[in-house]
């Protein structure tokens, strides 16, 4: 199945949500992934606030600092149009709204016609249901980009995805599970707690079956 990310010819700006920055920070090859994508990648300043070192739980500033210094990532602010969407996405009932970083990411994507890179399934649902139909993708879509596969190589890519799964507990949608399992191998799937238990136990069973006799 083609990743939702599409071909590199589209060159849409990518707007990364907090969840995605955390995954890229954990994978250990975040800057290489961004460089391979060869397109404009931005983070809205609301997301930066969630990663700020003074923020009680923020600890991904090193990745951000490197990415920014190498001009792989830019910090942007919402304009008037974006702020209007931001307000609609944050002020209202819980089920219909998002937290600030997520809302700002989607709002910016609408404002400039970019693609919101966001893993949260509620945020994805809101994108699907939004009248402006903002485009969206996930962290896995970044990893699956042909340029990333080419520039990192499958071994390094497998290691990056494995780290994102184990360190950051990256979310993986059902449609991407098969690709993930094939990439990192059934032996390592058991160590990825964010993957469905059914997948982990099935892969564990297969892994045991493949053990040489007497092992």
């Amino acid at each position, binding site marked *: 199945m083609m990743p939702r990310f599409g071909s590199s010819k589209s060159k849409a700006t990518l707007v990364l949500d907090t969840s995605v920055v955390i995954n890229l920070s954990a994978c250990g090859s975040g800057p290489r992934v961004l460089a391979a994508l060869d397109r404009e990648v931005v983070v809205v300043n609301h997301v930066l606030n969630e990663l700020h070192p003074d923020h009680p739980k923020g600890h991904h500033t090193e990745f951000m600092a490197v990415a920014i210094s190498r001009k792989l990532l830019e910090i942007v602010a919402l304009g008037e149009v974006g702020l209007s969407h931001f307000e609609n996405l944050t*002020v209202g009932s819980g089920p219909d709204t998002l937290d600030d970083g997520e809302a700002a990411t989607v709002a910016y994507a609408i404002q400039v016609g970019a693609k919101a890179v966001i893993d949260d399934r*509620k945020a994805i649902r809101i994108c699907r249901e939004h009248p402006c139909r903002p485009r969206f993708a996930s962290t896995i879509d970044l990893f699956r980009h042909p340029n990333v596969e080419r520039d990192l190589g499958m071994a390094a890519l497998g290691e990056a995805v494995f780290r994102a799964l184990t360190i950051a507990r990256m979310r993986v949608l059902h449609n991407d*599970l098969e690709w993930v399992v094939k990439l990192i191998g059934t032996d390592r799937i058991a160590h990825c707690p964010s993957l469905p238990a059914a997948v982990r136990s099935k892969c564990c069973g297969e892994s045991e079956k493949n053990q040489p006799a007497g092992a």
Partner: protein
Amino acid sequence: MIGSVAKMKTPLDLMNAEEAGERLRIAREAAGFTQAGASAAVNLARTTLVAIEQGLRKIRLDELQRLAQLYGTSVNSLMRSEAVHVDLVPRFRKLIGTNDMALRAAAQLLSDLARAEVELEGLLGIQHDHNLPPERPLLAGDVQVQAEQDAMELRQWLGLGNRPVPDIISLLEMELGVRVYMRPLDSRISGLFAFDSRLGACILLNSNHPQVRKNQSAVHELAHLVSTRQAPEVLADDATEKSPQERYAKTFGRAFLTPPRSVMQKFKEITAGSPLFTRRHVIILSHSFGVSHEAMVRRLEELKLIKTGTWDWFEANGGITKSDVRQVLGDVLPIEQKVVDAATSTTLRLATLANHAWRQGLLSEGQLAALLKLGRIELRSILDVDEGEGGVADDAPVWLK
């Protein structure tokens, strides 16, 4: 008017100004700002902030964003319609010194977690059942006698009889409907207690402490729930034991966790045939009752089952070591020996509610992280539990071929 287009009302326009103002006031006070301080920090006239908080003027988005950032919260957290805006911190004001940032932060955390739980219940349509015991205000006379009496009465009320209570924290949560939270706190803080008519009884314990100390703190707060329910309470290292309330709580805790008849019976069983009282006996007894070795020995001294000074003797002669414990209890280490993953510890109920709200798509990861005051990865570790067959996708499970 012909040719003009009415400006569409935004969500902030539609929001009740008084409600918005009240939320902002609570958030400002929770963050420790005066009106003058907050308005100066965000470049807003003090009179404007006053008008906003009083509901006389609607807040604009740019102002809201600046205030949210100053108060260390988010626009969504402030303005989400189901968000609960009750602040427990002012109740602790008399107990917390003006410079005690650690205690202040703990009181704020208790308030935030209780509000989070109430909001999650509302979203999920769950009613929180209280089953609080009868109140027993302190009377004139010997408070320790009252405490022993009230502890035994509560045991009877709960149907515990004389048997040990292996898990006081679950008892508080499940039987009494007390909201119990565990988070890493400053080491000198053992616990906090507060009661609110909307939030109910709320307790915060220090997840950095070993289990037996948490048990002791939990039952201490239970004592306050029984005797001084309407007053908030802080249990810290520098707490004075001389006040009637503290003497009551200490005695209540001892009587509740180690009721006399139960201790006497167990002591008889464990030491049967032994001419000496040994470390082995201490280890088994304290494991049975879920209390520390020192608490167990001192209780035995108090009940005159062993000589006064026995604990002092143990301390002077090498104490009771982890190796001693392992020898006696083997692989079944007492919970106090286990390494507590303080970074991810949270009580079952709050974790379960968060899990349900996320799986039902009611709140996003960002909203839950802000609500529960957790980092994203910590939150994900909670959401990964009880994942079941549904996995993390929208669709039915895909069985890989």
